């Protein structure tokens, strides 16, 4: 074989020189690496019947403790360290006769603020979509609670770590692309698990078919989330406070705020210096170091 075939000539080298950074840049922008490769969870509240089978399936798969009577239908439950997903009844504030069940869990933000806040990088966004807490690394500082726009993480007082839904990431690749436990348990197809772009397409299709005032939550909230929820009406009517539409975890914002602190610090230093020069006695300056 000709040895020359394996060599990189100048033209090829130039191509690589231009191509590799372009590829890397595009990847980081997120155009190439986009919705086609991530998984997402669709929650269709128009179909949810509030049976709480998703809750019990979640508990069974993840080995969580059942606390008292939280699995009874229509019983108000809060997210806890042993309750990674809850189903609650919400009333429409404009029309009290209209009520809907809401399936609430970690929304798996595309740019998770919790991961940006964690001081020891215990929280990671997996390439497949789940936002996962490494419980062996979590120091229990609860800064992620503060950063989370949906207030999802909960502290486990026994294990002294933070726990939350991880979209059954241990189930997805291991068992031949099985769905998360809650999705597999849903008897009415209110939960759906697929590639993210398929999920968005399906959500839009359902909303279009249903008409009315349906609202898709998760497309823009907190910069987009991998759990997409179809609400029967806008979130404000249901008493839900939606996260700001801009991306929460912005490093530029953090730098801006810290810079304000530095400016305050330099201002303080300047004030102290001015105070020192103005009030220093002549006697004192005579005692200063001669050298």
């Amino acid at each position: 074989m000709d040895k020359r075939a394996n060599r990189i000539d100048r033209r090829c080298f130039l191509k690589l020189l231009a191509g590799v950074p372009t590829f890397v840049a595009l990847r980081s922008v997120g155009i190439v690496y986009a919705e086609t490769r991530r998984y997402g969870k669709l929650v269709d509240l128009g179909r949810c019947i509030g049976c709480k089978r998703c809750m019990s399936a979640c508990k069974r798969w993840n080995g969580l403790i059942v606390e008292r009577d939280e699995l009874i239908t229509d019983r108000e439950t809060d997210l806890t360290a042993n309750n990674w997903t809850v189903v609650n009844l919400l009333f429409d504030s404009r029309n009290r006769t209209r009520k809907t069940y809401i399936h609430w869990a970690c929304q798996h933000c595309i740019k998770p603020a919790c991961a940006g806040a964690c001081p020891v990088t215990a929280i990671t966004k997996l390439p497949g979509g789940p936002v996962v807490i490494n419980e062996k690394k979590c120091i229990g500082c609860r800064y992620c609670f503060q950063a989370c726009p949906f207030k999802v993480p909960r502290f486990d007082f026994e294990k002294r770590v933070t726990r939350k839904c991880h979209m059954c990431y241990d189930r997805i690749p291991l068992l031949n692309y099985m769905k998360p436990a809650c999705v597999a348990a849903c008897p009415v197809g209110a939960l759906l698990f697929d590639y993210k772009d398929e999920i968005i397409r399906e959500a839009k299709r359902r909303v279009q078919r249903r008409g009315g005032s349906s609202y898709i939550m998760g497309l823009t909230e907190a910069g987009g989330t991998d759990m997409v929820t179809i609400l029967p009406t806008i979130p404000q009517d249901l008493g839900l406070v939606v996260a700001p539409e801009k991306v929460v975890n912005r490093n530029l914002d953090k730098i801006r705020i810290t810079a304000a602190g530095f400016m305050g610090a330099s201002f303080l230093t300047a004030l102290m210096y001015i105070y020192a020069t103005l009030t220093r006695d002549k006697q004192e300056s005579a005692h200063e170091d001669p050298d």
Partner: protein
Amino acid sequence: MRIQIKKFLDTILSSVEGSPAFYVWISFLTTLVALGAYALLMSLIHSMEILEFYTNIPWEMMVSNYVFLVGSSIGLCLVSSLGYVFGLQRYEIIGKRALFLALITVILGLSSIGLHLGHPVRGAIYNALTPNMGSAMWYMGTLYPPYIAFIALWFWLLARAELAKTATESEGLKAKAYRLMAMEGLKPYLYQRLPLQKLGEKLNRLLPLERAGLGLDSDGVELRWARIIGTLAFIYALLAYTVEGSLFAHTEARPFWYGALYPVDFYLGASFCGFAWLLAAGIVTYKVKGDDIPAKLRDLFYEMAEILALLLSVGLLFTAYKMGHGLFESAKAETIMLLLKGPFSPAFWMIEIAIGIVFPVFILLYSARKRKMAGVLVASIMVLVGYFVKRYDFVVASQVYPLIKRQYPLHSYLPTFMEVLLISGIIAALLLAYTLGVKFLPLKEEMPIPRAITK
């Protein structure tokens, strides 16, 4: 063996001479510390739930206590840097007391946050192994250890000469302990054991330490090194506290904390806390001991009282600005109304504003003009109480407001009994450490450091 122990105890007791009131005070504080330790032990044995069990309010009184104590430490560091960094010699005499207070407050503040963490040891390990450069908390964990080291070194440099003097004046175990603290005789010992002399000569050739008056044998070396270390500590204090404010201000999901105002607000709070701590601790110590305050120090205290009044009025202005600015942002306004009109309003108006800022300004100005020490003391203690409540409101009020579901009422929060025990244990440990420090360490405001010019 028993005789030896008895002898040992006797020597300790004989060195701790004091009035009955002193023993009562010490035993009271020790009891509180023991109760705090009991609460901690129970939380380790049973569950952390006995300390803080509100699922919706993850940061509670331990965090606010931590912010208060660390802010005090930074403020004390700023006050002592007036003397050693900015060259105001009249402030140099209070350096030792300020730095000792700064050291114990920052250590107890960090232990307060350490007990709040689920896994403090893990925190130290993974902070070093897998850092997250985008997280303010990582910078916090990284900047405080060098700050503590610099503060401790600075204090030691200032206290060394007097420790050595006490060692020569006393005998037996006490002399040994003080000699150890002053590290007296370390240099000849090291020179005998290790080939350090050659190393020292080489180092001197590389860095002209001797010529700059920084060599070990130079005259007034402590003061010169104290200035260098003090500058470093000052810089680290500013860095660490900027990050501390940013830690809260970065959280966009907590509208009350979010924004560029809080890092600046933290500095203001720290600076008046530093003055207040120093005035309160200094005056109380002189009053309890029954000593006369030296004239020089008396003048300085009144001057500090006036500066504190000025800082407090700036703080009041800043608070008004902060609240007014927040009311125009719809996300912040609802939390701010909790403070202005809601369940936090008694604490806000009565303690944070009236007791913490407004009354002290008048009392301080009046007593500085009339030269009444008691007024200064009362006002500075009021400032401290106000600042503690201010930080408590700041941490808790923001979290009480429910963010996701408006249908719920406000989250309720009351410190648990065990939490109160632990916090009072930490505060008692602070007072105990200060009492023992006054007893054993040279904190008195004299001029012990060899001045740079002795020629």
